[in-house]
């Protein structure tokens, strides 16, 4: 309050008193007027004065205005004025006002520009005022609640100033307002509804409000996300034209960044909501360099940052890697690489794209592999890595771009043994390709160029190709360089130390020393190589022991580190430079304390902790480019152990060695036992597995056996049935064949059996057809025979009946004719007698002549009848002859029948035989199954490992073959 009075006291003269009085009067009116119109006018007047007399209005009117907000809820006009007034007194920054009051109807306040006080001071005062009034407003948390309920008012004149007021409050007293909103029921949710407002001004200011609201408050960020913020914001971005959109897109992106930065829960939600996929179209910017407005650059920049937030090296490894995976899967990485290789992209966008690609591929093998496969659209196509490295070692490229390329290269090699191998391979003599520029060539070029920045970058890049990779450290020792014509080639290691001793720029030497430290660290062979050069150790001891200026301290420290590594990873293979001898050298030439102090220079360097913070190489200026992130880790790891190694006396070391040895012995014993246990454990596991598979097998087998048994039973039944049926139905055999086919579990055996059965069946069908042929033949013959028989024996055949009836008719005719004949004979006898009687009784008169005619007549009749009798007799004889012929035919047919019958019997016997054979086979099958069962049983009893049926099958098949052989023998 002291300050308050001071401010008030500081303006005793001038027009203010009138202003103050006016404000006072207006406040009274606001408080006492009963008519709404009066109150409204008074508030409107206050609003008009609120900019000019901000202090007065703020101190005197605030309570009244808040009261108005409570009591005059029904009149949106007065609410609007009150909110505007409150906004004017609470809102601080000119800039902000300009932003807020962008609509042309409201004039921009020029007040501050008229003030004579220096800008800083004025701004400070204003800010103090704003904070002061904000605190006053917040004294009662109810006011904020009230404001929140007012925001539900749909009226533009209430909602809009309400949004602006709340934004201003948040700007001045962020955490306090956040706290109030957080505890008010549905507070955040209501504010989220602003994004759905159809009036763009409110939606856009709602974005600004949410930006302020979500600043640094994870709880609010999560609620905002829960209320579908991602969906809405991404929709707005799309509606507004993505990167081509205006400031609204920028605001949306800023809000998204707020929601996602350092908020793993929201990041997870963003990923799970498949929103990463929706970022991909943002980067489809194409090759046309027509539209790169400042806004577009800003938007793209923020978009790239959003991608980076999801895969930042600071995130939990699991979260980052799953985001990296989906970025590759949805094609986002590919899209970014397209921008990387496109032409006409502004340098800062290109730089940020490189940084983004770096983090998208960092430590993710698939993404790194993809990146290695990207080619620049040049002619001939070059790998993107090579093109980027060319920029890194090019002095004319912007510094930040070169840093970005280095970062990209580092990320490409991070946890990527394959990539490291590929890079080192481009330096090896066997794989070198003279025709095209390789990554290795560029790095060597950079390492030995005149530009110290290139030296440093190339050295660090090469060091990353060796990081945690013993193979590549050893491989790189093979690299030879042709320095100049006529001179013998020099090894890369040698060349590095040569340059080091030539005394170049600090940056170059620091880079080379970092490379050497990384190279020989944890690699005794490289240490030996390094020590093998007689000049190296004297150079290092010289550097460390000399009393040099500030600038050289870092180099001295790094030299001490290098020498320390030479001691720590020494395998004592060089007699002159054993661990012991090097230690003595330090003691004599440098002094232990001095050495440790110099070693300490590295980690104490002011730039060291900066580099240790994050993997990305960022430096305010090129001169400060001294430390690499991975190298700081190495220093942290080695400093302690080297200090210890140097301090230890030889006796101590010996003791330690002994202790170590015994420990090692113990360790080895323990490890031996551990191994044993592990082996046994593995064995147990294996056996368990075996047991389980065996028991499973057993079950299967048993199931199989029962199945087979049931099948066999079935077959037996069928067989019995067939046996019964066989006489009538020889076809039944084939169904048995089918049955056997079903039983296909002992496949090999079965197939053989099946084949045989098939053959048998074929034979059978052949026989059957023959048989049926024969049968039909027999039948025809039989029927023939029957015809004959019926003719003779009078059986049913209709033809026979006809013949018979004909015969009967004929016979009856013969008989009737015979009787007629006898009648006629009797008649003649009588006539003759009568004639004799008449002849004797009467003279030969007319009567006798009549008698004579009569006699002749009779005589002629008799002759005719005799002739007829003769004819009939003839006919009878013919018929009898036909009969005889038929009888003969019958006899011959009967003989054929007999022949056929014998033949049939023979065939039946044959069928019987084949049946028997099949019966035998089936018996055999049953035997086999029995055998399988017994074998299984045996196996089970023995608990032996027999894993497959095949073995069984093999056995049984062998047996079966033997059986068959026997059979064949028998047949023979």
């Amino acid at each position, binding site marked *: 309050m002291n300050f308050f009075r001071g401010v008030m006291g500081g303006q005793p003269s001038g027009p203010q008193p009138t202003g103050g009085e006016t404000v006072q009067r207006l406040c009274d009116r606001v408080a006492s007027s009963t008519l709404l119109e009066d109150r409204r006018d008074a508030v409107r007047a206050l609003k008009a004065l609120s900019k000019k007399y901000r202090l007065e209005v703020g101190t005197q009117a605030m309570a009244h205005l808040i009261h108005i907000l409570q009591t005059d809820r029904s009149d949106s006009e007065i609410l609007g004025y009150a909110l505007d007034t409150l906004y004017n007194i609470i809102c601080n920054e000119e800039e902000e006002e300009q932003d807020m009051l962008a609509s042309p109807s409201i004039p921009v306040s020029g007040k501050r520009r008229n003030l004579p006080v220096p800008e800083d001071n004025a701004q400070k005062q204003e800010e103090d005022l704003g904070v002061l009034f904000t605190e006053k407003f917040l004294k009662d948390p109810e006011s904020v609640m009230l404001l929140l309920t007012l925001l539900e008012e749909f009226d533009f004149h209430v909602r809009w100033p309400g949004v602006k007021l709340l934004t201003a409050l948040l700007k001045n007293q962020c955490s306090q307002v956040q706290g109030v909103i957080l505890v008010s*029921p549905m507070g*955040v949710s209501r504010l989220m509804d602003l994004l759905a407002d159809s009036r763009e001004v409110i939606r856009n200011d709602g974005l600004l409000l949410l930006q302020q609201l979500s600043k640094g408050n*994870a*709880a609010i960020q999560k*609620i905002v996300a*829960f209320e*579908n913020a991602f969906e809405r914001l991404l929709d707005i971005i799309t509606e507004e034209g993505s990167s081509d959109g205006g400031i609204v897109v920028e605001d949306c992106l800023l809000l998204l960044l707020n929601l996602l930065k350092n908020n793993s829960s929201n990041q997870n*939600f963003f990923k*799970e*909501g498949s929103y990463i996929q929706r970022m991909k179209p943002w980067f489809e910017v194409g090759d046309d360099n027509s539209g790169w407005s400042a806004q577009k650059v800003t938007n793209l920049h923020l978009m790239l940052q959003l991608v980076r937030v999801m895969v930042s090296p600071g995130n939990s490894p699991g979260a980052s890697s799953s985001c990296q995976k989906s970025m590759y899967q949805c094609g986002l990485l590919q899209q970014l690489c397209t921008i990387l290789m496109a032409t006409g992209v502004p340098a800062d966008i290109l730089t940020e794209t490189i940084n983004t690609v770096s983090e998208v591929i960092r430590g993710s093998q698939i993404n790194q592999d993809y990146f290695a496969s990207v080619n620049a659209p040049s002619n001939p196509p070059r790998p993107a890595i090579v093109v980027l490295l060319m920029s890194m070692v090019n002095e004319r490229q912007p510094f930040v771009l070169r840093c970005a390329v280095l970062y990209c290269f580092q990320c490409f090699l991070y946890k990527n043994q394959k990539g490291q191998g590929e890079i080192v391979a481009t330096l090896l003599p066997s794989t070198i390709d003279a025709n095209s520029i390789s990554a290795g060539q560029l790095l060597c070029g950079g390492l030995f160029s005149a530009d110290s920045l290139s030296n440093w970058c190339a050295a660090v890049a090469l060091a990353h190709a060796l990081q945690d990779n013993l193979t590549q450290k050893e491989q790189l020792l093979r690299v030879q360089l042709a320095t100049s014509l006529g001179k013998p080639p020099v090894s890369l290691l040698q060349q590095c130390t040569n340059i080091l001793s030539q005394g170049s720029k600090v940056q170059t030497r620091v880079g080379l020393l970092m490379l050497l430290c990384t190279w020989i660290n944890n690699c005794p062979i490289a240490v030996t190589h390094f020590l093998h050069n007689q000049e190296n150790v004297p150079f290092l001891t010289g550097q460390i022991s000399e009393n040099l200026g500030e600038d050289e301290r870092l180099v001295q420290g790094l030299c001490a580190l290098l020498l320390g590594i030479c001691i720590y990873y020494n395998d004592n293979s060089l007699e002159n430079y054993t661990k012991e001898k090097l230690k003595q050298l330090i003691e004599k030439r440098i002094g232990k304390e001095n050495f440790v102090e110099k070693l300490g220079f590295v980690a104490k360097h002011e730039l060291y902790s900066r580099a240790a913070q994050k993997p990305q190489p960022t430096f305010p200026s090129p001169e400060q480019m001294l430390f690499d992130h991975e190298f700081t880790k190495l220093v942290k790891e080695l400093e302690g152990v080297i200090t210890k190694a140097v301090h230890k006396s030889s006796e101590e070391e010996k003791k330690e060695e002994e202790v170590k040895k015994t420990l090692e012995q113990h360790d080895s014993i323990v490890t031996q036992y551990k191994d044993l246990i592990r082996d046994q454990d593995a064995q147990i596991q294996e056996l368990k597995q075996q047991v389980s598979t065996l028991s499973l097998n057993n079950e299967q087998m048993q199931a199989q056996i029962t199945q087979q048994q049931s099948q066999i039973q079935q077959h037996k039944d069928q067989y019995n049935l067939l046996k019964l049926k066989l006489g009538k139905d020889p076809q039944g055999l084939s169904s048995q064949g089918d049955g056997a086919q079903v039983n296909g579990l002992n496949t090999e055996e079965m197939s053989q059996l099946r084949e045989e059965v098939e053959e048998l069946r074929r034979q059978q069908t052949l026989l059957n057809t023959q048989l049926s042929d024969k049968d039909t033949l027999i039948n025809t013959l039989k029927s023939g025979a029957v015809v004959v028989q019926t003719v003779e024996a009078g059986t049913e055949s209709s033809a026979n009946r006809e013949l018979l009836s004909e015969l009967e008719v004929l016979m009856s005719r013969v008989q009737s004719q015979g009787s007629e004949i006898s009648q006629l004979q009797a008649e003649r006898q009588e006539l003759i007698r009568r004639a004799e009687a008449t002849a004797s009784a009467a003279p030969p008169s007319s009567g006798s002549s009549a008698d004579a005619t009569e006699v002749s007549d009779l005589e002629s009749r008799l002759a005719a009848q005799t002739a007829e009798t003769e004819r009939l007799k003839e006919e009878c004889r013919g018929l009898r002859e036909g009969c005889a012929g038929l009888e003969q035919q019958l006899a011959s047919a009967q003989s054929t029948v007999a022949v056929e019958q014998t033949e049939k019997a023979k065939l039946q016997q044959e069928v019987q035989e084949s049946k028997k054979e099949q019966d035998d086979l089936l018996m055999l099958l049953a035997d086999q199954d029995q055998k399988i069962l017994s074998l299984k049983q045996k196996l089970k009893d023995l608990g032996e490992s027999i894993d497959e049926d095949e073995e069984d099958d093999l056995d049984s098949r062998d047996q079966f073959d033997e059986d068959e052989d026997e059979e064949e023998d028998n047949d023979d």
Partner: protein
Amino acid sequence: MAYAYLFKYIIIGDTGVGKSCLLLQFTDKRFQPVHDLTIGVEFGARMITIDGKQIKLQIWDTAGQESFRSITRSYYRGAAGALLVYDITRRDTFNHLTTWLEDARQHSNSNMVIMLIGNKSDLESRREVKKEEGEAFAREHGLIFMETSAKTASNVEEAFINTAKEIYEKIQEGVFDINNEANGIKIGPQHAATNSTLSGSQGGQQAGGGCC
């Protein structure tokens, strides 16, 4: 990752009843024995299948501590389902259910499906709340009930899936307005609403049968 529906869940209940463990068991299929206090809210997600349809569950696991109560209230409105969890070995967590339920009913939309969960069913020897009591409470307040163990994973899947089935059924009955995302339900991007209602009605009945 195409889905037919997306449901938002919240998990509520006293501190230390195993809300985060239930979520971890459901999403990652693992159990973390150390109690790591949830600050505010944590998010988890998983895909499930109901009636042959892919359904994405987005789950917000809330802090049980009283001090976070006001924050967690913000999550009721937008949720389609809530798992209300108590600890069968601590009677007080059961006694607080009424408060939780009132809070939930007050702030959520009326159709929110609430599943009552008695967690830590593996600790039978330390049981303080009988299963029958939980069942009775659920019956009385119209909730679905289940006893789970986040440690042994017993009934954990069922708890989340049965809740989803209930919501799914309500959708088929037309109780939920699926076009209003504030209800915590969203239709999948390529899923036509009409065919889903047609083909889903039978499945809903089936699911209902399974629940009761």
